């Protein structure tokens, strides 16, 4: 009995990076805010590089609460989209090379999103990681945490409910 040889690492990486690119790039608002994603295996970390246009209170200065909300929501929705896409690309059901950025057929829609502001967002880079708590056929619930200098000191967290894309559409 011999197992099939594992795929070469660069093939695996190329496939996964292409899938992530298709998911993230081509969405104007995500690019406007400058949000990027770092991938380690299937784990994603969202990165929001600081920029002056993100300021909400010029006196402190602090990141705008709306930017924080948008950053967390983007992290949550990309994580959910990624978890759906991961299975499809790893099973060979979808070829990531054929995915056009920003034109993915299936994207979850936000139903409701609740943000807790725990600390003021400082004028420096912010990071976020989202976790799909429940992913059903119709609805999904995602929790997301954001921090700046210290992973343990969150500056915001959020929970969102999403309407799953209809797979047979």
């Amino acid at each position, binding site marked *: 009995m011999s197992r099939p040889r594992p795929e070469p690492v660069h093939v695996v990486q190329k496939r996964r990076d292409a899938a992530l690119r298709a998911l993230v790039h081509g969405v*104007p*608002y995500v690019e406007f805010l400058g949000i990027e994603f770092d991938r380690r295996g299937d784990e994603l970390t969202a990165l929001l590089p600081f920029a002056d246009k993100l300021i*909400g*209170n010029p006196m402190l200065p602090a990141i705008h*609460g709306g930017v924080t909300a*948008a950053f967390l929501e983007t992290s949550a929705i990309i994580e959910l989209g990624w978890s759906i896409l991961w299975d499809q690309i790893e099973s060979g059901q979808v070829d990531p090379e054929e995915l056009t950025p920003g034109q993915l057929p299936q994207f979850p829609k936000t139903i409701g999103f609740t*943000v807790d502001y725990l600390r003021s967002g400082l004028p420096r880079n912010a990071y976020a990681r989202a976790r799909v708590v429940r992913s059903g056929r119709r609805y999904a619930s995602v929790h997301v945490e954001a921090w700046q200098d210290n992973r343990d000191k969150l500056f915001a967290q959020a929970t969102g409910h999403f309407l799953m894309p209809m797979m047979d559409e």
Partner: protein
Amino acid sequence: MNGLTPEKKAEIAKRFTEAIPHSKALGMELTRIGNGEAFIEMPYDERFIGDPRTGVIHGGAVSALLDTCCGASVMSHSRAPAITATIDLRIDYMRPATPGQKIRAHATCYRVTKSVAFVRAVAMDDDDDRPVATAAGTFTADHAPGRKSSEALS
């Protein structure tokens, strides 16, 4: 801060809101403010699209508009301090905003206690009968002048 006339309070809230860099970046325009109520408009802009296939504005941009509008309504309330920060904000999305139409937000700060301001808001496009999104939030109402406000208008 509570010795200010409603007009002065509205004026300060208006100036502060209009000076927010991110609100400017999103093209927000404050159309009316005073006595715990604020109206802000955000024109349609292709840079804020969330779904390139349909041209629908990203939910995050709507969140930024609602958060700004909520904060402005708090600052204009007679019993709230002139500076505030978001504690929490819940947004429900009823439907995608129609591409090409501006989004108008209306926030009402309906209650201010010793330390917390309670706000609700609605976002509409040209269709006045069907809201695009609604928001409910709490904001700081820290009257102690010596204490550092952690975040103003978040």
